[in-house]
């Protein structure tokens, strides 16, 4: 019997909302949005639960009929989003496409979407490339928070200097 891989817990911030689960990867500065089925599958990724058992549990928890194939599609998407600790090896016998075709009915709940910031709200997220960030407006560093492990905001010390992640004070206006 094939067990599901273990879910990643370290360096992640997870927020469960009524209709979806959000996860922020502090290592890669990526935000992900998990549909209800994907979130339920993720919660059973413990290295011990079999796919068949997980399918039954997820069906019970979400009210959506989920089979083993759907569980493996979900696991694949979770792996692509780096939300799993272990490497995923699907049971043989079917291609990825076949798995997907079998799971179209619960496709919406399976979704593991990347959450991207609309440009205008970048201040609500972070920049991982402060020193080379596109300057908008030209010449400005934006004052946007730098993504961990860098700290501070993308600012400049003074006129004519390069953008750097600064931890003190605001940006040079």
């Amino acid at each position, binding site marked *: 019997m094939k067990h599901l891989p273990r879910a990643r817990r370290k360096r992640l*911030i*997870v*927020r469960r*909302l009524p209709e979806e689960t*959000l*996860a*922020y990867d*502090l290592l890669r500065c990526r*935000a992900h*949005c998990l549909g209800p089925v994907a979130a339920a599958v993720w919660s059973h990724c413990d290295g011990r639960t079999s796919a068949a058992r997980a399918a039954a549990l997820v069906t019970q928890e979400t009210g959506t009929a989920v089979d083993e194939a759907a569980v493996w599609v979900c696991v694949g998407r979770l792996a692509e989003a780096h939300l799993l600790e272990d490497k995923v090896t699907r049971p043989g016998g079917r291609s990825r496409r076949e798995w997907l075709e079998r799971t179209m009915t619960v496709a919406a709940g399976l979704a593991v979407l990347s*959450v*991207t*910031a*609309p440009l*205008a*709200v970048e*201040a*609500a*997220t*972070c920049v991982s490339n402060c020193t080379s960030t596109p300057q908008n*407006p*030209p*010449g*400005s560093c*934006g*004052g946007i*928070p*730098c993504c*961990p492990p860098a*700290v*501070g*905001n993308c*600012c*400049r010390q*003074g*006129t*004519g200097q390069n953008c750097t992640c600064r*931890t*003190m*004070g*605001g*940006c*040079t*206006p």
Partner: protein
Amino acid sequence: VAAAGTLVAAFLTGSWREPVDAWTGDAEALGAIQPLLLRGGVAGLAWRRLRATGLAGSSFGGELHQAYRLQVLHDGVHEEHVARAFRRLREAGVEPLLGKGWAAARLYPDAGLRPYGDVDLYVRTADHAAARVAVITASDAAPIDLHCGFGELNDRSAETIEARAMMHTAGGIDVRTFGAEDHLRLLCLHALRHGLLRPLWLCDIAAGLERRPTSFDWDRFLTGDPLRTRWAIAAVGLAHVVLGARLDGVPMADRARRLPGWLATSVLQEWGTGRPPQGAREPMGDALRHPRRLLGALRVRWPNAVEATVGVRGSFDAWPRLPYQLAECVRRSLRFVV
């Protein structure tokens, strides 16, 4: 521009309340102001009014939803920053006070309704040097805006501010924030100093006003420099006039309602323009080296009537604002040159 600002205000009216009324406008109206909502830091609040409507699934609604999701997650990131900063400063023997940002987000029913930037920490003037060293030398430092003293609240004693401080839990540790009265006054004065460029700042005031604790001490809110007190009352009045904040139980409600006509107009015009706030602008020194960009840089820095009045310590009265704006320009230019 003023019409767009009015629409932004209508969209945000009551957006901090629980339960919230669904937005009843159409797609065209949403499309017209959605970029302003994103730029104004109120995407989360706007999404809250939109989520139960048919427009939630539209492309405009989708961007607001994404912004809300990011804010929910960023609350977690920011909480870690807050906890880390407090730990560092306590190790250095400094007990800071947290204001604005994370503390302001506690005024809303949901932490994802407000964006986050710096961790605004206020320390006593005597502690500033030690706090600065602690923050700079920390290898895992958070993005901190360390204030020397209590900023706009420096017209009251550190002892009374600290005596009224409140405790919250962030990242598993206790963190100290301003008392409700001090924080509302700080939010009012900070928003006015920056010309209420961002609609978010007036929403903070409205939420702080309506969701204040029952023990809220209005005398405490009104204590301090009389001119600043009049400004704070005007900010409360603006939250009522522009965003429909309720003034039930507010002792100076009549004074708050008596605003000069230009004040709300100036705010709505600003919101309709969506100017970038200070810190997100092209440095003036850069613009001086590229004369073609100079005019734009000056235009974006032209002080609006609110920030000009506060900048030159004027009153929110019925007199024309142009002299204040010119005086503020001179003041800023001198500061830039010096």
